[in-house]
């Protein structure tokens, strides 16, 4: 598979990562090589094979529907780059 500039920019947008001009060409090459390499999986017959959903075969058990934590807003926002009155502060979202 050939990864071109438009695809790199599309994926970068989906991933919310700004990719600068010079990085695009490098990524085109690297991603083309990596996707080319993983294409060898197409040679493996997986007809009728269930996709793996868990390695250990263990059943997840639901826990009790109970509050186990809370009342710690100050702790939650403590590492925030910007906060006010225990809210996270972000650039304006709605005009």
């Amino acid at each position, binding site marked *: 598979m050939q990864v071109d500039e438009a695809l790199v920019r599309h994926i970068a947008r989906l991933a919310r990562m700004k990719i600068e001009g010079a990085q695009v060409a490098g990524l085109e090459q*690297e991603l083309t090589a990596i996707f080319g390499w993983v294409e060898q999986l197409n040679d493996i017959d997986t007809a009728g094979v269930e996709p793996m959903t868990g390695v250990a075969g263990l059943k997840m058990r639901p826990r009790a529907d109970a509050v186990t934590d809370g009342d710690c807003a100050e702790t939650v926002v403590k590492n925030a780059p910007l906060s006010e009155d225990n809210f996270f502060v972000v650039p304006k979202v709605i005009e």
Partner: protein
Amino acid sequence: MSVLTQLTIAQARDGLDKKDFTSAELASAHFDAIEAANPSLNAYLLMTREQALSMAAASDARLAKGKGGALEGIPLGIKDLFATKGVRTTACSHILDGFIPAYESTVTQNLWNAGAVMLGKLNMDEFAMGSSNETSYYRPCVSPWRREGDDAKLAPGGSSGGSASAVAARLAMGATASDTGGSIRQPAAFTGTVGIKPTYGRCSRYGMVAFASSLDQAGPITRTVRDAAIMLREMCGHDAKDATSANIAVPDFEKALGKKLKGLKVGIPKEYRVDGMSPEIDALWEKGIAWFKAAGATISHVSLPHTHAALPAYYIVAPAEASSNLARYDGVRYGLRVNGSDIVDMYERTRAEGFGTEVRRRILIGTYVLSAGYYDAYYLKAQKVRSLIKRDFDQAFESVDVMLTPTTPTPAFALGTKSANPLEMYLNDIFTVTVNMAGLPGLSVPAGFSADGLPLGLQIIGKPFDEETVLRAGQVIEDAGGPCRAPQAWWTETPKAAAAKAPAKTKAAKPAKSSKKRVDDG
């Protein structure tokens, strides 16, 4: 160098019991060693001296009352992937600048509950993505090993490079590590240390910075198999905070080492004899087989036909899960924020600057393989291949108890020699990644040296939740070859040069690029 730092965990435990020395003395001896070595090795990102000394004092008090835990007073290093309450945790990423967790990871809490003492936080590849420690934002950690007659800086392996380097260089008696595709076992092999990745589910992932959730598993790096058994037992256990944590009793792994081995069935998977494998590794493997025969084990050849598919499947599954896990780093709740013209611009700038090259690459791969229209072709296909890999192991384990393979296809390489080609770097994990894909326990044990004097490791792969047999088999290798000797302490050979750098010694490692003020505690 203090003799106290040379002790194994088992020896230190006995010495503490007999009051030959105190936990405070053990911790201090390690800080002396770290101060001498860290300017050269860059294994520790920060030292938690005050915390260590207060933990050691508490340990000494408990020991005096005869109430010590299984790791009472034992000084350990902690990979920067584990959240440590009140102590900076960054996973060696710029995007987690100054992050100080308000909680403790379950694995480290288990260690503290057993009486262990924290020396500090250890270098690693950014978000555990790498095989050489070169993707760390805090500059690579350097291996304490050098080739004979050559002072080129070698990679300690990755991603747990700081853990392996610190344990090999006697800067910690043991260290926590984590393994998503080989990140415990490959650095252990490169540094002459013992590393075990237990069965998926043995260790809680709560408080471990997530990379690929269906593959990530914590484990110890130590200097002997016995120490690995001691430390692993304390790290494991069911945890309600991790839904994938196995509610299965944790056996006394150390006790298992004493059990008889005669009649053990060891499988040799023929597909692991790959092109490009160094002849030294091949010879090491043959030597390992001979050791098992001499110990009374039965050797048989087994087939794992989908081995070649494990690495490409891994490079779909792991980036896919990583792109999802790393979506949380957006400059809002913690870590780095780079301001932009609007909120999306802020996200995009923060993530572009905060993630390093390899992490960005993997996020892009993962985003693509999960994107609309491609999910079935990539992610679903890879998960089906994963079922086939697991089935191979299930079938092979019907006739054998463990498998013996090399840990890595080559000895350690020099820093900077593989970082230009991502695919070449990925091939380092060719023998280890299958084990993560199938969720099995895997152990690397030092088994010999390359012609130019670098340690080499053999890997034992076991059945799910059968770490006991894996460790017993590892003990056979260690008994035959002896525990790996200590590397020559070249970092202490130029006292003048070291003295000139003295003011920088006690400070935490500085990041590669300049950035705004960061918080270094401890």
